[in-house]
């Protein structure tokens, strides 16, 4: 074979796209339904004031906006992501070099700060967004959602499944979007209260400090495995991958680089621990601000039956919250400060969110929909407020919340006593039956 100079028959690979065909997508085909004022549970429907025509028009307008950005995507966007990657790697390289001498306090401070910034950029503006397929269009195998691996405890493959499918598809639908509290927090009055939620301010603080491990555990879908939707075999395979990933990550940060620092071993180790922890707290805060501040809507499973594209867009807009701030702040959040725009168009390049944000805001205001946004401290406080507020059961007239908590404590105590007895019996049986070690049994116990 030789050249591509000629195309004697057929259609040339270079030919531009021709006419646009109808869009028989599963969420574009049907027409929006009349909106009920409230859902089955009696919860108010935030889009009750919109007619099916309004919803259809919003869907079309947003589709057109998406097409517009895609048509103008090009060289300058490619330059942007490559520049971010180059800057990030340079900061990391220089910071790591400085940390070789971390025994000296100035080197320690500069190196730790640099490494923290590099690690944050790597996870947010680079990793998260590449794994969303935002840069797949460049056809660069080095910057592609199928090839990228990130500096994070959860393997990219597993994170993509839980995050992109569960969360981005079923955003804020109670019972379907596990990001709504990550199965460990109660952040909405419609989520059922359990005793464990009483301690959720502490749970959440720990979650913030060890966020990447929390996400890794979450991406493992332990809940699904316990409930039987994920097979033992699959779970074990995923677990091995997570352990391997965590091992290589920890070896790098807590062994290889400290050892290379020689006499600065301990201070370099500390620098890495600080960088990882600060990043954990930062990403946790940013992500918390995306869906948990006051004003963000949650949805029920019946609201997504026969959902149209317009309705889907509306759920994304109403179920997300932005963070206002400087350009540097937006980049450090991976443009997740434009959470609303990101949820509408998860695969558009992140550098374009700021550009379309004013138009999204105008569209929402035109339709009397609330565009939730605010500075980072305010949004973080608001999200944390919910963590405290929903740690206790909902207030209901003629109902004592103290009695409810007390009842739950008693029930838990009885359960625990039974559980201890059962475990003791099981252990006895197992000891009698076999003395062979079973690593997996230990993990699952």
């Amino acid at each position, binding site marked *: 074979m030789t050249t591509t100079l000629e195309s004697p*028959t057929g259609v040339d690979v270079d030919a*531009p796209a021709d006419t646009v065909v109808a869009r028989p997508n599963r969420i574009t085909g049907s027409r929006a339904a009349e909106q009920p004022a409230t859902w089955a549970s009696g919860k108010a429907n935030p889009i009750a004031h919109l007619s099916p025509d309004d919803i259809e028009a919003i869907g079309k307008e947003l589709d057109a906006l998406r097409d517009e950005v895609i048509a103008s995507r090009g060289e300058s966007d490619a330059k942007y992501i490559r520049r971010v990657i180059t800057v990030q790697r340079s900061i990391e390289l220089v910071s790591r070099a400085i940390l070789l001498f971390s025994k000296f306090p100035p080197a320690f401070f500069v190196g730790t700060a640099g490494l923290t910034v590099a690690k944050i950029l790597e996870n947010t503006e680079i990793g998260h967004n590449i794994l969303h397929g935002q840069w797949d269009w460049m056809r660069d195998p080095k910057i592609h959602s199928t090839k990228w691996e990130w500096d994070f405890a959860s393997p990219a493959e597993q994170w993509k499944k839980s995050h992109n499918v569960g969360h981005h598809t079923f955003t804020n639908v109670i019972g379907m979007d596990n990001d709504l509290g990550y199965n460990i927090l109660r952040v909405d009055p419609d989520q059922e209260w359990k005793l464990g939620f009483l301690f959720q301010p502490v749970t959440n603080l720990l979650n913030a400090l060890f966020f990447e491990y929390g996400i890794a555990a979450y991406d493992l879908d332990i809940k699904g495995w316990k409930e039987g939707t994920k097979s033992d075999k699959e779970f074990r395979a995923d677990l091995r991958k997570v352990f391997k990933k965590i091992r290589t990550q920890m070896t790098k940060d807590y062994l290889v680089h400290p050892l290379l620092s020689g006499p600065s071993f301990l201070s370099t180790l500390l620098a890495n621990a600080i960088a990882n922890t600060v990043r954990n707290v930062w990403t946790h805060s940013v992500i918390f601000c995306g869906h948990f501040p006051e004003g963000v809507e949650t949805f029920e499973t019946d609201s997504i039956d026969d959902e149209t594209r317009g309705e889907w867009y509306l759920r994304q807009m109403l179920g997300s919250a932005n963070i206002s701030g400087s350009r540097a702040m937006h980049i450090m959040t991976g443009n997740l400060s434009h959470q609303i725009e990101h949820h509408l168009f998860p695969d558009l390049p992140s550098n374009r969110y700021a550009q379309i944000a004013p138009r999204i805001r105008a569209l929402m205001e035109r339709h009397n929909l609330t565009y939730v946004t605010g500075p980072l401290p305010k949004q973080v406080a608001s999200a944390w407020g919910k963590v405290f507020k929903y740690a206790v059961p909902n207030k209901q007239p003629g109902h004592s919340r103290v009695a409810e908590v007390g009842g739950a404590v008693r029930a838990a105590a009885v359960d625990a006593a039974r559980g201890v007895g059962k475990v003791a019996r099981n252990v006895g049986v197992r000891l009698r039956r076999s003395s062979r070690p079973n690593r997996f049994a230990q993990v699952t116990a």
Partner: protein
Amino acid sequence: MDTSERTKPDSRGFGGFARRTAGMVGQSARKLAEAMATPLLPEDFLGLIDPMRFGADLRGRVVDVRRETPSATSLVIRPGRGWRRPTPGQYIRVGFEVNGVRLWRAYSLTGPVDADTVSITVRAIPDGKVSNHVLNRVRPGQLVYLDQAAGDFVLPDPAPERLLFLTAGSGITPVMGILRNHSRATADIVVVHSAPTAEEMLFREELRHLGETGRIRFLERITGRDAGEVRLPAHRIGDVVPDWQERHTWACGPTGLLDEADAHWEANGIAERLHTERFRPRVTAVGDGGEIDFSASGTLVTADAGTTILDAGEQAGVLMPSGCRMGICFNCVAPLREGSVRDLRTGELTTAVPEDPVLVQTCVSAAAGPCQIVL
């Protein structure tokens, strides 16, 4: 020393010990560098310093851009370290970044191979993304991606004394690569070449000069754009080259020419004297719906324009990766190796050729003509 020990020179004696030690040190250094860089590779950091260094993905720097005809451009590219010397007549795959998108195309090498550069010649076709990019946007100093040269359209060593090159259009490019490297003045070479107009004929001056100086016998044929007879029919080769049967022939050009030549040489019982280089047939027909070839599982499915590749594959029992099924999560991405698919959200057409497969989202793409998905 026992002679039997000498059979394993690599593992015995001081030299072997030194080599093994060096190997182990090298491997350990590599392991250490990997542990330092994970989840990236050490190369990703080295790339910041020198993108063309040894061991990196092969790249080249454009050192010269020459306009051959109003629509054809020659590029002289200096490959990075790791480049292996090609054989004249071979082709290379070149990846250009066209408006931010990396697109790969294959081109015959047209320059001398003993220099540390390679040359290719690209003719722009209407609406061609890559060819027009080369025509209008490529400048000296830019970096391109490269693959090692490949292809067997090459002269044997030693080359036959009497040669015939039968070409049309841009089929002259690999032949030019051979001619520019074939220094033997004694060889008896005939070149029969057709082009639509004199102006569009690539390398016309150079070919004529070679003809005038006696290096080759050059028979050119200007066919005109809409002429009924587009070029010399292969079976009339005897009219212009009476001793054609005694020559070894290398033919390159449009499919029609090569099919005719195959048939004619075969009919004369000298098929072994014909060596052809085919333009990869570009019959990536575009339509609504089409046959999807899931090549890894060997499944063929016919799907209409409204059925996603994901649905079609699943219905046929292909093990399809999937996720959100609405174009968001990128878990269903699979390589489109050949053919066209249409994005059901935007109507946008994506076309791939085997030299440049594209990853597509199967959950929002439908077949637009026959296509091959590697699943």
